[in-house]
């Protein structure tokens, strides 16, 4: 006894490196944790493992070539990214999208949001050991991806948005397919709800874990479902409505004041139902019509575009002499500048027009050749949409040429990940998994 009194037990904190590759993390991120036993005393978070230089690449090509890059930001809900970028450029150019185009965008965005939430809650439950529930969620996600595939032809990298509209109209029978898919998705959600929402193990690991107050949430500029679960009553779709969201009837689920992981799960769960309601309303309200406009704001179909070219808007093009570059890399810029057609269009012609008529081909080339194409007036615009994780903003600066001078993407999960070190303090190591799961870090948009 005397010996113990003379040499009291001393403890030291331990440094633990979690990641960058760890089985309980969907995404590459590294935590450096200072541990006292199993409690976290201090945490640091290192990101950037998936940095691909999106913003630098966006400055290299034309305004159109940025669209495929945006797919790869949040690769779980790419239609929302497409829409966000297109809204920013449209704002810069001052053009509006026809009504039907807006409806198609909203339908695709909301379907994308469902897929995103399914992935988030599905992966998070799997990391807590609920593998059965995960398989249910993935089944629902496959059904949702089938819908996306039916419209865009791709499951993840959809590149569906276009400046001035969308790539194509909805396919025949899409409405029926949606009703069928949603009926099955709802069934699955009911089953998952029964499996998880009152499951003792699940609730014990989620309830009162990762508590983060409303004030700190706002201080960290966190938006989206994470913030709504923490009591921030704000949804861009309702509070600063863009597109046609002001015509839809939906509720914004808010947390019940616990500000914990369970609320984040519950809010996402409730949002999926709201998204499905929105899609159903859109399909009912949707007008028939064109999905694209020309520069003056006139609605155009692919066939009209060809007609337009046939009416002589390419006269100047035919009269002038174009000298091809010997390297076949393109044409000399000096020569090309004389061929600038006064009637510039915003939208890429349909593939049928491009491959089927010389006018369509010219129109296409006029939009994609360096030195031509979309050239918004010099200026800047911040376009913003409600992403699946929060506010997704694109700040686009134009210098009047056909290449964006600067494209800044404000990624929704960046502020949430910035707050993780503060959220983790005081928790156990095992709590990292549910906290991180509910942050829903998407490395593609976080690191860009």
């Amino acid at each position: 006894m005397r010996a113990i009194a003379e040499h009291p037990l001393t403890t030291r904190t331990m440094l633990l490196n979690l990641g960058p590759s760890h089985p309980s993390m969907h995404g590459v991120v590294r935590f450096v944790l200072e541990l006292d036993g199993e409690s976290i005393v201090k945490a640091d978070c290192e990101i950037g493992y998936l940095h691909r230089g999106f913003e630098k690449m966006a400055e290299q090509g034309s305004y159109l070539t940025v669209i495929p890059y945006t797919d790869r930001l949040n690769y779980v809900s790419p239609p929302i990214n497409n829409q966000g970028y297109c809204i920013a450029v449209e704002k810069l150019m001052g053009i509006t999208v026809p009504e039907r185009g807006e409806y198609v965008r909203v339908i695709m965005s909301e379907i994308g949001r469902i897929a995103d939430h399914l992935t988030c809650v599905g992966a998070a439950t799997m990391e807590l050991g609920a593998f059965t529930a995960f398989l249910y969620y993935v089944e629902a996600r496959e059904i949702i991806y089938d819908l996306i595939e039916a419209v865009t032809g791709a499951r993840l990298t959809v590149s569906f948005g276009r400046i001035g509209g969308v790539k194509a109209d909805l396919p025949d029978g899409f409405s029926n397919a949606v009703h069928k898919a949603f009926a099955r998705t709802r069934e699955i959600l009911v089953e998952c709800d029964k499996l998880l929402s009152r499951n003792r193990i699940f609730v014990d690991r989620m309830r009162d874990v990762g508590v983060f107050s409303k004030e700190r949430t706002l201080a960290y500029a966190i938006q989206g479902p994470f913030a709504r679960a923490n009591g921030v009553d704000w949804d861009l779709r309702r509070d600063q409505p863009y597109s046609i969201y002001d015509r839809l009837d939906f509720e914004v689920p808010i947390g019940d004041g616990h500000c914990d992981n369970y609320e984040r799960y519950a809010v996402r769960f409730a949002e999926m139902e709201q998204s499905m309601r929105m899609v159903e309303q859109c399909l009912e309200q949707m007008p028939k019509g064109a999905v694209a406009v020309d520069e003056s704001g006139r609605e155009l179909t692919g066939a009209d575009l060809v007609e337009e070219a046939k009416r002589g808007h390419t006269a100047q093009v035919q009269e002038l002499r174009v000298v091809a570059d010997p390297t076949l890399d393109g044409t000399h810029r000096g020569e090309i500048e004389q061929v600038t057609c006064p009637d510039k269009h915003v939208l890429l012609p349909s593939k049928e027009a491009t491959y089927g008529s010389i006018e369509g081909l010219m129109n296409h080339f006029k939009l994609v050749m360096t030195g031509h194409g979309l050239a918004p007036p010099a200026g800047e615009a911040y376009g913003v949409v409600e992403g699946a994780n929060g506010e997704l903003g694109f700040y686009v600066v134009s210098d009047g040429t056909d290449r964006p001078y600067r494209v800044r993407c404000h990624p929704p999960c960046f502020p949430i990940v910035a707050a993780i070190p503060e959220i983790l303090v005081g928790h156990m190591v095992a709590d990292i998994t549910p906290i991180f799961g509910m942050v829903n870090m998407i490395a593609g948009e976080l690191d860009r």
Partner: protein
Amino acid sequence: MAETVACLRERFPAAILETHAFRGDDTVVIGPEALRAVATFLHDDLDHGFEILMDVTAVDYLRRKPRFEVVYHFLSHRRRERLRLKVPVDGKSPVVPSLCDLWPSANWYEREVWDMYGVRFEGHPDLRRILMYDEFVGFPLRKDYRVDKRQPLVGPVN
């Protein structure tokens, strides 16, 4: 909307270099020396001020003087409006005061601007690279950083 801009004009007549509302985005351009005062005003004094600093970024206008522009996007849920603040900074040794103590969200955003553009934020508690690795040389989003430039891969430190 323009009320905030008018309010700022009245309060800081000398500091405001320019204002515009191109495409409906209220924008105020101020010098770096006035940034702290204007930001504190927006955060604390303004009625229902801007509780959210949504984004901090920069633009490199290579041939312009001053060369850089640091761009702040604010959002107020209570006022339901947004405000853009632009701060032109010199290209030689770009420095702006940090806003970390007012909005904690500024911490990582400012680190990213430092990482990508080499703009220093005075008073930032932990100004390190965030997306690039520590051994990286140069600032990749500057206009004079070539897009196809390669740097040797740096292995583990120990």
